[in-house]
């Protein structure tokens, strides 16, 4: 099963992509982008009220939700967001403590994973040069579709040094970028709980469809 674990819809202030447009694009590009579902990780926010079940049924794609929050170690994707997590952490705070967030999210039933770790200022790599490693990190986004040259490459050093697992996501803010990078799981995933369990357990890897898209163009 292949999921794009890092996407932004128009709910994020810097994206103009409607969720349904993502789904239409994936259906249209299915022969090139074998994506089974997406995880919406809107910036600094979480809403319990959003429900995409009718879109899932209409397009035959899984839609899960997480959040991208901002910490003193850079940006972190949170999956399995629940009331306990949002009551404890103000997602609009761009100075959250990563050392506090990561273990607390795990304790409260979710998982918190650093994204685009090779990116300056908002990536783990740079912060690890001056600060101790974050306790409890099990994986990092080794492949990010929005990274610039050299940013994804720096992540391999982190993975080797700290034994992190690797996953991928498009970090899409535009419709045509959805699914360009994603994560292939050995197991099936139907719910957010399944996703959290799988991310802890292992048996997944980043997949890159950019060459395939370029060839098909």
């Amino acid at each position: 099963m292949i999921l794009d674990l890092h996407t932004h819809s128009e709910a994020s202030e810097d994206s103009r992509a409607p969720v349904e447009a993502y789904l239409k694009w994936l259906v249209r590009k299915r022969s090139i982008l074998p994506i089974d579902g997406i995880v919406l990780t809107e910036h600094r926010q979480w809403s319990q009220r959003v429900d995409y079940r009718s879109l899932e049924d209409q397009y035959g794609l899984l839609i899960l939700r997480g959040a991208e929050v901002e910490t003193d170690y850079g940006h972190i994707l949170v999956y399995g967001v629940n009331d306990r997590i949002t009551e404890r952490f103000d997602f609009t705070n761009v100075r959250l403590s990563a050392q506090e967030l990561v273990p607390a999210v795990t304790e409260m039933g979710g998982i918190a994973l650093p994204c685009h770790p090779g990116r300056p200022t908002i990536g783990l790599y740079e912060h690890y040069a001056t600060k101790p490693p974050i306790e409890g990190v099990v994986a990092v986004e080794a492949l990010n579709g929005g990274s610039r040259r050299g940013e994804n490459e720096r992540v391999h050093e982190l993975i080797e040094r700290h034994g992190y697992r690797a996953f991928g996501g498009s970090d899409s803010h535009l419709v045509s970028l959805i699914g360009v990078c994603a994560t292939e799981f050995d197991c099936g995933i139907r719910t957010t709980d399944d996703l959290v369990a799988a991310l802890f357990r292992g048996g997944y890897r980043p997949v890159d469809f950019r060459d395939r898209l370029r060839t098909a163009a």
Partner: protein
Amino acid sequence: MAISLDRSIVGVEFDRTVCEPVTETEIRTYSAISGDPLPPSPGGGALVAAPTFVVSVRGKKFMPPKLPNLGAAGFDAGKDIEFGEPIHPGDVLTVVSTVHDVYEKTGRSGTMAFLVLRAVITNQRGDQVAVIDQKMMFR
């Protein structure tokens, strides 16, 4: 410089301007300069302004008089426009400006603060002509 994110300014109306009636010359000049063509007039009726004509409609105050300390330098970070009723010559437009949002985010270059100023433009019948969210970025 430490920034202040005092959200008490969110929702505060800082300007309400009733503009002079829109003229045909203004509508035609805007299209000629901007390149945004005049849309066809329904049934050959009154002239219709180009959709983006609304960005030329401004209140008297662009910024609220009292801003929190968002940083030393600010610049235009783009605008979102929700278009409503078309504009015709003779329309009397009212612009109501409020602070819609203030928030921080972090990116490759560091921490930024954003101020979103919302202008709601209505015509003499009270119909909504446009909602313009103007973003300003500070650091």
